[in-house]
């Protein structure tokens, strides 16, 4: 779990705390907002609304119940739902080169977690997972392309999955 040093009760009631929370979590929140809304402008709006709502309700935040990151994601989730309802009434044009997501929100969150975790993996580990799992290529073919023994590709898949688990845990994932 990611925890902020300022995660005490009411940790977001001061502007300085909002700045710290923004520095720590805005990238992830924005990434998820873009992934689920498919529109860079709407994603900015969603992140802005999330921090403003968090600041308004800052006194109610209690780290004994959950981390600041989890709380911010819960607020963002509600904001995205509200924006989705508004967009259902007023169709928006996708911007920022990302296709709009049509998945239910929980699926979008899961997808974003996997994609963000894959982005944080080392190149060697990400490459073998993409080639063998997502592209379904034979290990021998991937090994030849990379110029390494087939056993090395298998061990990289193993260490890649381990690294992926560590990254997901850092992002707050629990079994």
């Amino acid at each position, binding site marked *: 779990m990611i925890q902020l040093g300022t995660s005490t009760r009411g940790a977001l009631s001061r502007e300085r705390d909002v700045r710290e929370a923004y520095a720590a979590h805005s990238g992830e929140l924005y990434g998820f907002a873009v992934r689920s809304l498919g529109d860079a402008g709407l994603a900015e709006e969603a992140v802005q609304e999330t921090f403003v709502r968090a600041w308004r309700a800052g006194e109610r935040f209690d780290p004994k119940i959950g981390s600041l990151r989890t709380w911010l994601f819960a607020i963002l989730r509600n904001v995205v739902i509200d924006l989705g309802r508004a967009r259902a009434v007023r169709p928006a044009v996708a911007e920022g080169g990302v296709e709009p997501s049509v998945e239910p929100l929980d699926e979008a969150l899961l997808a974003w977690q*996997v994609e963000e975790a894959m982005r944080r993996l080392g190149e060697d580990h990400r490459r073998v997972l993409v080639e063998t799992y997502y592209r379904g290529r034979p290990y021998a073919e991937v090994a030849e392309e990379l110029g390494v023994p087939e056993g090395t590709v298998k061990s990289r898949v193993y260490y890649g999955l381990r690294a992926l688990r560590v990254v997901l845990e850092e992002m707050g994932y629990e079994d």
Partner: protein
Amino acid sequence: MKTRNGCREWRELLGAYALGHLAGDERAGLEAHLEGCAGCREELAALEPVALMLPHGDPARFELAPEPPPELGRRIASTIEGEKQRAQQRRRRRTFGGFALGGATAAAVAAVLLLFVFGGSSQDASQPVRFTDLPEGISISATLEPHAYGTEIHMYVHGVPSGTLCRVWLKGPRGASYPAGTFRYRWGDDSDAVLSSALDISRTREVVVDTGKRTFVAPVNPPGATATIGQEETT
């Protein structure tokens, strides 16, 4: 079957096994090892949930790492600062209102002050307007200010869907409507919409806000309103 020495070599096959990529002798050999090795079974149990998550990811998006624009943080700080100032203004208005209504002496002092400041009667004072019985999550308030041309309306709406077109008008003593204009509510922008209407504040009886799906009405009771009774309205 290839001979493997110790757990480490078997363990390095666990990733391919968890993804369903092992076959034949290699798979059979690993499964035999797993039966007798609690440590490797535990390691496999840690990898399997991760393997089950992989289908949810879209590899086409692995290279996309959208970053929030640099100005977003400043916009949020500015919005919060604006909201703080607004809250302080409301507190000051409430304080002044309490003082003005506090007693006959205080009211007399307030009337003299208003006369001095505006060069007119106490009906020239800014008039806070309360919207009551609002749905949960929606805040609407307004402040009316007198002008020679009519009334300036500082309109605050929060909580309706972002992008909502809001139409505002004032109603006079006989129910005639005087348009005050439109604005679009956006999340994160908590500034007042400043609108104006030709209706004099002393003759304003209601502020009406139409958000498309719902219409909200708040009563206005301007001081000294009796002075204008009998005047005709035009729409």
